[in-house]
């Protein structure tokens, strides 16, 4: 039986809420956590999309989703580090596509300094083909979100998605865990019921 519950991690003082879902079997819990960055989450519909899509879902290893992130407060990076240490996966979605330049700068610095992920400036995606091409965890095309925050060149990790020929998502092993960065928001597509986005996430859950 799947039991959903919402609880605060040790970061309650920072008002970061994390939704935890466990299998309730008494064995090591398989969790899907969606981290609400509050004012540092730029797209509330992205948060809602991930929450809806992950409701009742379980994973073999811990999975922490950070939707539409701008700045990364210490509490958030602490939660991410904790997840990675436990061999889990962190899915970090950029929320800087529509952000003001000052917020974009903070975003870029946070990714570079705390996660060693270097990203370029947000850019409009061409309207010629309105999709982002994902190669992993399964090849699929998912609706873009008009603007993307592409990855800078030459960095470790495996590129897993492209838009207009630019790399926009990567996965990287960090210790026993895996960091996934996506520079084109998936949450709004999940929120709007996009089939391919849901399948992509389900595939991630099943790994």
């Amino acid at each position, binding site marked *: 039986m799947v039991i959903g519950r919402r609880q605060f991690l040790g970061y309650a003082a920072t008002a970061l809420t994390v939704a935890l879902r466990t299998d309730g079997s008494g064995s090591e819990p398989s969790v899907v956590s969606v981290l609400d960055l509050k004012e540092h989450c*730029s*797209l*509330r*519909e992205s948060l809602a999309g991930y929450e809806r899509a992950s409701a009742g879902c379980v994973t073999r290893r811990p999975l922490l989703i950070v939707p539409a992130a701008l700045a990364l407060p210490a509490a958030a990076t602490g939660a991410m580090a904790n997840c990675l240490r436990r061999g889990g996966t962190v899915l970090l979605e950029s929320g800087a596509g*529509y952000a003001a330049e000052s917020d974009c700068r903070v975003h870029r610095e946070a990714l570079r300094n705390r996660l060693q992920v270097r990203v370029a400036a947000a850019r409009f995606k061409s*309207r010629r083909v*309105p999709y982002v091409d994902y190669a992993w965890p399964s090849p699929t095309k998912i*609706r873009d*979100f*008009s603007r993307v925050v592409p990855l800078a060149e030459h960095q470790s990790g495996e590129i897993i998605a492209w838009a207009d020929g630019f790399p926009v998502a990567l996965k990287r092993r960090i210790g026993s865990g895996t960091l996934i960065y996506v520079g084109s928001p998936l949450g*709004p*597509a999940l*929120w*709007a*019921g*996009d089939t391919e986005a849901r399948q992509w996430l389900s595939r991630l859950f099943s790994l």
Partner: protein
Amino acid sequence: MKKSIGDNMIPKDWGFERGLELVKKAGFDGIELWLGDVPWFQMTTTDAQVRDLRRKIDNAGLVVSNVSTGLHWAAPLSARDPAVRAQAAHIVERQIETAVLLGTDAILVVAGLVTEEVPYNEVYQRCVEALRPLGDKAARAGVKIGCENCNSEQRFLISPREFAQFLTDVNNAAVGIHLDVGNIHDTGFAEQWIEIHGPRITRIHLKDVLKHRGRSGDQSVYTNLFLGDNNWPAIRAAMTKVGYDGWLIAEMEARYRYAPDQQFYDTSQAMDRLISGRL
């Protein structure tokens, strides 16, 4: 039923007060104010200035039928950019505020815009979620939000049943439909829209439509009452059937090239014929 016409129909060089005189003289009972479309009624117009507009309308022997806006074409509630959505919501809130100041209980909103960039499913979901809290604000102010059926132009909620489902999903008694009988083009029949929406209709926009023309080039698909393809006896009968006894608001896209004031008289008389059922 009462007759109204948009203040955006007032010839550009006439000014508001002279326009009000024309509206009254042509036999209308009220005027529809278009926020953002006319120089006298902008987002920057203060409450005091809005009250002054009302005083002028009162002095002309008219009332305000509703507050409309075309601003949502540029700033839709369905935009991906949260800043644009916030601006769109702010426009609706200002419409509600000014409706109260102007003594009317209805506003017109173009709820969403499907584009090549922003797909249908996103637009639908965003509009539903935006209209719920806005409906609550409208209800507190005693105002109803009428989402206009701009079918072809919005590429959204093309059929009457889908529009009805949308309103059901919004699930707020303060949110209904501002039904435009000209906007249905060749995708359906206005009388069927009236039948399906009945008590959810907040206001009715009147214009005729040339169904064969379509939206091609710079030719308007719209025309004056009784010149196009709408089935006016059926439309009138449908209003009776559902008990609609509210405002009828003329919205002519194509303006008279000469003697623009004549369009007001002609439209008013045509509306009288429609209301009387002598068709």
